[in-house]
């Protein structure tokens, strides 16, 4: 029984080291080969998402994720790995997201993130085509009688810390010479709890987020109608996926998945008709999108994006095109696509896909 303590500790130490090795999942990125190869080798996409914004990124009670941004994660996984479910979602706070990206914690950040010069430059992120055009707004309780920012002298505003909105808020109120108290929260849930309990009078964030939160505002607290989003939009917030600077191949893949989904919407190809379009594409642009021969001819030139030329087939099959993703996630929030910036350029919006050819 009384073996030497030193001996026992040594055994324990060796066991611990061995265990750490066992628990350490095999996710080493091969030297030299880029992120794309690393993801393929791993067989899974690590996607940084939000877990608290219904419609964009939300953690359901069963542990699964849903939302607009989450669908783009799935689309990238479908394109690269052929399986939209091969995604490891990593929920990130606003403050932690760029460090997670730059330090390779995640492969791609799709977390309602605004494309800014500082982030593109100093923070080491690279933004793809914007998936959602947004702007910062202010939400108040309807009964407060506040109709514009200039009415808000002396109020308290809830905001997420470490976001562009925190800075925009300061800029806007400084511009109007309005005094206010910002109450900065680390996570959105605590923020909403505070707002619901009337700890603050205003809630500022991207308009889409406000709408999302408003649409699901619980009836117990007054329901959506008890809230008003002010008409003033005081910033531009183009939201889109971001990858780490310095890996063009990977950037291209993510970027063209986004473009492909918008393109598919423009061409009217979606999950419901992708099979027939594969066997018989309705136009040469559809053939290019899906990577199939046009009218039985020779193969079209490969884009050489690093993924198989048919990558959009799986995306459309498993996830759908831009409009489907939008309908599925954003419309239930009460934000229809028509008449907003996110409508197709043909319908008065600014969503415009570079040609896939």
């Amino acid at each position, binding site marked *: 029984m009384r073996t030497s303590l030193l001996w026992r500790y040594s055994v324990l130490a060796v066991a611990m080291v061995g*265990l750490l090795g066992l628990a350490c999942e095999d*996710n080493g990125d091969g030297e030299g080969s880029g992120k794309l190869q690393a993801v393929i080798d791993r067989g899974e996409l690590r996607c940084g998402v939000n877990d608290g914004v219904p419609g964009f990124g939300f953690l359901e009670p069963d*542990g699964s994720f849903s939302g607009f941004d989450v669908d783009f994660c799935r689309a990238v996984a479908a394109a690269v790995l052929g399986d939209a479910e091969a995604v490891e979602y990593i929920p990130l706070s606003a403050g932690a997201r760029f460090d997670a990206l730059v*330090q390779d914690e995640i492969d791609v950040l799709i977390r309602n993130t605004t494309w800014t010069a500082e982030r593109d430059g100093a923070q080491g992120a690279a933004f793809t085509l914007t998936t959602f055009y947004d702007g910062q707004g202010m939400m108040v309780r309807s009964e407060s009688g506040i109709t514009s920012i200039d009415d808000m002298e002396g109020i308290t505003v809830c905001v997420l810390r470490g976001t562009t909105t925190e800075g925009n808020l300061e800029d806007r109120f400084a511009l109007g010479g309005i005094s206010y108290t910002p109450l900065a929260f680390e996570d959105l849930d605590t923020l909403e709890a505070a707002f619901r309990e009337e700890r603050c009078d205003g809630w500022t964030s991207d308009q889409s987020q406000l709408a999302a939160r408003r649409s699901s505002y619980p009836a117990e607290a007054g329901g959506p109608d008890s809230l008003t989003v002010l008409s003033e939009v005081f910033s531009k917030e183009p939201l889109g996926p971001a990858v780490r600077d310095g890996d063009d191949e990977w950037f291209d893949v993510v970027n063209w998945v986004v473009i492909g989904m918008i393109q598919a919407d423009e061409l009217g190809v979606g999950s419901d008709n992708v099979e027939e379009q594969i066997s018989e594409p309705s136009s040469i642009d559809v053939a290019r999108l899906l990577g199939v021969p046009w009218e039985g001819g020779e193969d079209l030139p490969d884009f050489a994006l690093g993924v198989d030329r048919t990558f959009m087939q799986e995306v459309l099959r498993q996830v759908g095109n831009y409009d489907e993703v939008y309908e599925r996630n954003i419309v239930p929030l009460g934000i229809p696509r028509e008449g907003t910036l996110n409508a197709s350029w043909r319908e008065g919006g600014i969503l415009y896909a570079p040609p896939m050819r």
Partner: protein
Amino acid sequence: MAAAARVVAARRPWHVRARRWARANLFSSGWNTLLTAVTLAVGGYITFALLRFVLVSADWGVIEANRRLIFLGRFPQGEEWRVWPPLWAFLLLAGASYGLWGRLRPRDAVVFVLSSAFLYAFMVEGANALLLGIGLALAIGTWAASDALVRGSRYEELAKRITVGGWALLVPFLLFMLAGFGGVRSSLWGGLLLNVVVATVAMEAALVLGVLFALGRASSLPLVSRVSALYIEVIRGAPLIAWIFIGWFVLPAFLPPILGLQDIGLVLRAMLIFSFFEGAYIAEIVRGGLQSVPRGQVEAAHAVGLGAVRTMTLIVLPQALRNVIPALVGQLITLWKDTSLVAIIALTDAVGAAQAAIAQREFIGRQAEVLLFVAFLFWTVAFVMSRLSQQLERALGVGQR
């Protein structure tokens, strides 16, 4: 004095007994009577409010809906079976240990049974009831068997050895079950399971590190002792949450780019941070224990011809550790509670799950229920740990020379 009164009173009718007891313990003077009245009013109100909340006004549906999230987090569907064998092993070992060593006091046993029943009520759905039932049956079975058959028999010593070995292998077994043979990636470990895994791994590692640094600090070699002291002071100087953030933001940049070390997941980093952080605290505790061993012990060991290393490992360290059991277990309880801090970084532990549950639309305003429930989960484990520590102290005669 109360004990004496009880026995004398035992020969009197109960109402006399009760009156005597009440007079001695509640109304011994005017001041005490006032105190009793005030305390009764305040305490009674709090108890009433709490009971009313728990039994009447609370809506425990939020726990039911989020049971999986709170216990397992985002652990993949269909892989839950991996959790059961370690839990069974744990219950089996607990039963055996209780049978072999334990003398749980009746009051502790009541608390234990009530907590188990409460947890059972919340954990059990469908097949889980059966699986948990198997575990409880194992616990009771091994307890009964070891208490009735093994204890006092010639196999007792062997059984004790096997049990100790079993405890030593439990954490490795747990990790193996979770991660082994095509298992679940650590980033998907969640809920209370995550707290348990991080806490148990960090506890073992922190004990090893703590002893090493304590020995280093107590070393007669000035350089070794200074460096150890510096490490201990720097680690203890900053809050744990700061170290966790450092593990999250800064550590990857400092890990060598070999063996995929830079890529280690958040859970592993949390284990590392907890081990090194709590190791510094444990080092201080062990150092206190080392100082409490009388110099005569060292001299006696030298006198019978033991070298410095053996004196330390065979004579001084065992006594030192025995002397600081209360403080050590206290620190381990702190470690257990501190694992909740991983909720502040991206991990969905029990507290993270609680926050997610609070955010759900259909359970608006249910934060008290969720937080109380999760607090209760943590409390139960911590309470059991502190009671076990008291038993251990009694068994080893800590504080008695």
